[in-house]
């Protein structure tokens, strides 16, 4: 071999260490996926509701959105994870409480995206469609829906990227995800011939996250340009 790899890198690819790291990344990605499965349909329903501007419901939803927006996600995670056991006596795992929190957050964000997209349909378009003799449902289906979907999809992908990045916080409520697996690998090899292991492990995790999120970001901005 002309170039010799640093011993730290061989440790990372030794045995099933690298697979375990990928498994850890999958843990946090799967939290985001489960949360989205709950959040997308609910968020769309609530977003449509919000765009109707019903007095009381609108105020409640607005409060919910602002609360979720203003609290750091980590605070929400702590709230659900600790109070569920202390106050309600429900012993849910860190994983489950993460799905709940990210679900809640996703619903709020998607609700606002949907409302924004519906509100941004130009009035003139709706009026033009109505003056052509379309019925209310036809206007909704043929004018509002395509316009809204076009706006929504890139924003939704951006939200997914944000969520995947944010689920890395679950390590702080004891979920074994990629950072935790990284720590385990570092600890297990503490007394071996890889003194700089921590540097390489965290670098690899950094790059893994980048490889997971970057394609989504690129895809979203490409779609945004294309749909315009």
């Amino acid at each position, binding site marked *: 071999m002309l170039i010799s790899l640093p011993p730290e890198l061989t440790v990372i690819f030794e045995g099933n260490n690298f697979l375990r790291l990928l498994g850890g990344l999958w843990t946090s990605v799967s939290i985001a996926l489960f949360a989205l499965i709950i959040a997308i349909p609910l968020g769309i329903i609530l977003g449509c509701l919000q765009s109707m501007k019903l007095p009381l419901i609108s105020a409640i939803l607005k409060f919910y959105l602002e609360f979720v927006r203003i*609290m750091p996600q980590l605070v929400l995670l702590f709230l659900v994870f600790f109070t569920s056991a202390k106050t309600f006596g429900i012993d849910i795992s860190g994983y489950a409480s993460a799905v709940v929190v990210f679900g809640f957050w996703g619903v709020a964000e998607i609700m606002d995206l949907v409302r924004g997209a519906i509100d941004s349909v130009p009035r003139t378009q709706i009026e033009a469609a109505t003056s052509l003799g379309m019925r209310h449902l036809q206007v909704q289906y043929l004018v509002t829906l395509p316009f809204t979907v076009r706006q929504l999809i890139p924003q939704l992908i951006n939200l997914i990227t944000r969520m995947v990045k944010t689920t890395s916080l679950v390590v702080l409520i004891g979920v074994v995800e990629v*950072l935790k697996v990284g720590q385990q690998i570092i600890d297990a090899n503490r007394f071996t011939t890889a003194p700089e292991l921590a540097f*390489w492990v965290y670098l690899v995790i950094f790059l893994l996250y980048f490889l997971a999120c970057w394609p989504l970001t690129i895809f979203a901005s490409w779609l945004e340009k294309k749909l315009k």
Partner: protein
Amino acid sequence: MRECIPLYIDAAGVTVLVAFFGVLGSLLVGFLLSVVRFFKVPVLSNVSGIYIELARNTPLIVQLYFIYYGLPKVGIRFSSLTTAIIGLVFLGSAYMAESFRSAFEVISKDQSEAASALGMSRIKVMLLIILPQSLPVAVPSLTANTIFLVKETSVVSIVALMDLMNLAKDIIALYYKTNEALFMLVVAYALILLPISLFAHFVEKRVKYAH
């Protein structure tokens, strides 16, 4: 719990300190990055492009782990507070740069070309033509980034800083006062973030009229 209030005030101080320098640094570095990108300065432009993509597509917690636990192994060592601020600036500057970039795009190319045809230097074009017009456009996303960054400071507890999050965790562990500690935590964050959010709304409104 009353005796814990001074502790919360101290911890909130740490959070605000990190957030303040983090946001300020992000604005400065982000602006410089976007200027370099805007004028397509040969090598620097590509470097800052890579920097922005790397910082924007990775979570802050991973960045902090790398800076605090990874870099010392190769001889680069920072204190907890410095690590937190560097991490926040690394993440934030990429977001701020994107905000500036999309605002610069609103100003048509003709204007900067006309200005340079009149003999203005690049710095003058930036400061006298582009910035005054694009700043109002950038404000909403800059304020959104600011709020996002202040919220992101909640993860700095992992580099052994006694911020609000770390304090709440300690109080839960020491006194088992879970609900009280978390309630205070929510109140503390609301007290920090609500004024910022309201101020952001106010500025956005003013800017909208100016536009």
